[in-house]
């Protein structure tokens, strides 16, 4: 429990210090990746409900409409669960590809919310974080894997 709360907290801190430029679009969604890690490799308790609660926490902290991140996290976690048995047998770089694809799905949902809310413009850069997620995933698995091995 402590490991999960700690890792989500650290991911929140990392997210809050985002750079503000075009490079921001490359920043991987750290909170989502940490949530997906626990959904895929964590104990039984960490499923859709957990993803929903983390998303809701993010909504309340970031001032987004309550339920926006919760919905996107929940749907992305569900997609991750569908792939869970296969992902467990993938090598870490292949897992990175899956993490990138799941981030892409997450961004699609968030972009849809953006279009509904503000009638905003759709830009390709919004999907660049999937690339960041692919690159960040191996490091994340390494770090959280060690934490996980010690804790359970």
């Amino acid at each position: 429990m402590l490991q999960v709360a700690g890792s989500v907290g650290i991911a929140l801190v990392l997210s809050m210090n985002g750079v503000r430029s075009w490079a921001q679009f490359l920043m991987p969604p750290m909170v989502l990746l940490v949530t997906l890690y626990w959904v895929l490799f964590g104990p039984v308790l960490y499923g859709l409900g957990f993803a929903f609660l983390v998303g809701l926490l993010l909504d309340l902290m970031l001032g987004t409409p309550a339920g926006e991140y919760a919905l996107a996290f929940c749907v992305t976690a569900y997609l991750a669960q569908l792939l869970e048995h296969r992902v467990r047998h993938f090598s870490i770089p292949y897992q990175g590809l899956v993490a990138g694809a799941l981030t892409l799905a997450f961004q699609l949902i968030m972009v849809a919310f953006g279009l509904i809310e503000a009638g905003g413009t759709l830009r390709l850069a919004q999907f660049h974080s999937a690339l960041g997620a692919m690159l960040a995933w191996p490091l994340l698995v390494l770090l959280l894997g060690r934490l996980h091995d010690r804790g359970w």
Partner: protein
Amino acid sequence: MEKKLFTKQVSAPRMLLLVALAVVLLLADHYTGVFAPARAWLETAARPLYWLGNVPGEVAAWSRANVAGPGGLAVENRQLQAEVLVLKGQLQQLAELDAENVRLRTLLNAQQTAKLRPLMAELIGVSPDPRRHQITINRGEHDGAFVGQAVLDGAGLMGQVVQVSAARAEVLLISDERHAVPVRVAGTDVRAIAEGTGDFRRLRLRHVPPTLEVAVDDLLVTSGLGGRFPAGYPVGRVASVAHDPGQPFVEVAVTPVAGLDRSRHLLLVFPEPASGSPHGG
């Protein structure tokens, strides 16, 4: 219920149930302020996270100020002294213009323009969502900050306060797609609305007819219309004017003068006399 929601078994109905719950929450949040207390509580609880997230920026600022060495500091000091001298000279001229303006307005029997008092604020957080150009500053209700307050940096308008809590405030930048600011062209006084594009380096003017006198490099300042932003603060310079003959309006791109993606030190603008008692910083 808890047992059914908090389990790893892949279940589409469970996912759909949570999606429906999210939609209910979205509607509840949109039509009622039911989550306001939770947000306020979380703001207080998350303060250490914001502080931690700001540590790398603080370290970078500290190292820039202290690792430069005595030579670098002396050069910087000389530059700052020269800058202060120039600004003092300009201020003297401004004081004379201000007095003249008051005399002329008295002669015309026109209303005096409101005096404004700035309060320095520091950036402590940035929204991790790239679609939202929103920043967090270290001034809140305790300092007199209020929703709708204009925020500037050394060069021009940054945005406006959209949410205030005890010790910090959320600022929506002018480049956010949800933001629009009434402007006028300095010199010609032509009025327009500058809206954000989601790009830190670009704004656009909305509904500009081809007959409007706008040229590249024109300076746009706040018009003060709408009563939200004080008049006369620089917003941006016209970067390009393009007219498609098939379209009724001209496409005008504007480059903001404020360092929207760089500035760490900002100014909150208070009308004077302020209703609260903001103390200078």
